[in-house]
């Protein structure tokens, strides 16, 4: 084999090797992306009312399991029933996520069917004393409290609403 032929073969081998590496990298990247997608899909469902089949358990065992699920998913809600609206547009909602709660919370302030404010995550033991909605007026409103999954921060369980009154601070 001449030197030129040998060099050509060598080049060809390197090219094939490089292509092979690139293909292997692409496959590896696809695998990583696929695994990541599967992990994201494997979050807990945001349960509210759920149905499960319990096989091989007595009625008493099933009842105990249902009761345990309820106990472990209780949430304490604490908000001001009368929220003062000051001249700056701040509303004193005093939303408290009790320290004994298992779940972070998020709340929405709703008036006339419109969400005028949505909070970030409130960890157990934390308080949001006031918020600044886009717009609000004195009168009836609703605070909706949503429990969040501690790991994924996705909605956990059913939300709870509280009827409150917005009162202008100088009228209180």
């Amino acid at each position, binding site marked *: 084999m001449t030197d030129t032929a040998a060099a050509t073969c060598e080049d060809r081998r390197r090219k094939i090797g490089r292509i092979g590496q690139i293909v292997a990298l692409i496959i590896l990247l696809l695998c990583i992306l696929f695994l990541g997608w599967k992990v994201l899909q494997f979050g*807990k469902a945001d349960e*509210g009312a759920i*149905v499960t089949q319990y096989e091989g358990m007595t009625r008493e065992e099933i009842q105990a399991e249902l009761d345990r699920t309820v106990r472990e*998913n209780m*949430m304490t809600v604490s908000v001001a029933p009368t929220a003062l609206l000051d001249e700056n547009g701040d509303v004193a909602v005093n939303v408290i996520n009790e320290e004994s709660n298992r779940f972070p919370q998020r709340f929405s302030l709703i008036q006339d069917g419109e969400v005028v404010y949505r909070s970030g995550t409130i960890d157990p033991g934390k308080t949001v004393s006031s918020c600044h909605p886009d717009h609000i007026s004195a009168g009836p409103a609703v605070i909706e409290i949503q429990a969040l999954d501690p790991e994924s921060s996705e909605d956990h369980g*059913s939300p709870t609403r509280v009827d409150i009154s917005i009162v202008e601070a100088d009228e209180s």
Partner: protein
Amino acid sequence: MSARTTRTRNRLGTLACSVGVACMLASPTIALAQDKVVTGTSGTTDVTVQTSNENIKFSIPTIIPFAAAGDGELVGPTASETLIKNLSVFGIHVTNMSVEEEAPWVLAPDAETAGRDNSVDFQVGPSLNVRDAFNASQEGGIDLSDNENWDMDYAGGESDSIQLETYGNISHATVDLSGDGAKIATISWTVAPGQHVS
């Protein structure tokens, strides 16, 4: 407990709270009274009552689990464990219950006769006023604001909680109910301070 007794106790509980607040307000109003004309050793004192802005506080289940039996019966948790419990210094009441079905489940008045895949019916509420999820899934939910069975006394009062009975049925289930189970609906409760509106 009779309704009259309950209302009497509620009034006593509210009165106890109001008297406490009135006592705190008595000092400045006595000073005002002294600015008025007072003869002898008697005078007048204005006593005012102001609603305390203590938080409304209660505990509530975020999940109501059911177990499905082979015949389609749904078994719910024990009522004494499934509580809405008032932790406030004043009475509160549930004003609304609304339910939103979770696809592919379909809420029906009667799952057994619904004739559709993944039909479900379930009922939730205190023993004297159990409510149907299908009705609660209609627009606006179920207005409970005038129903005394959804009242709760101030924390520590004799009726400071509501025990929720739960039961129902499913039929033609095609959803896999093993493992963590399946979400069939979201139940949203609305709570307000005070007692029911007669």
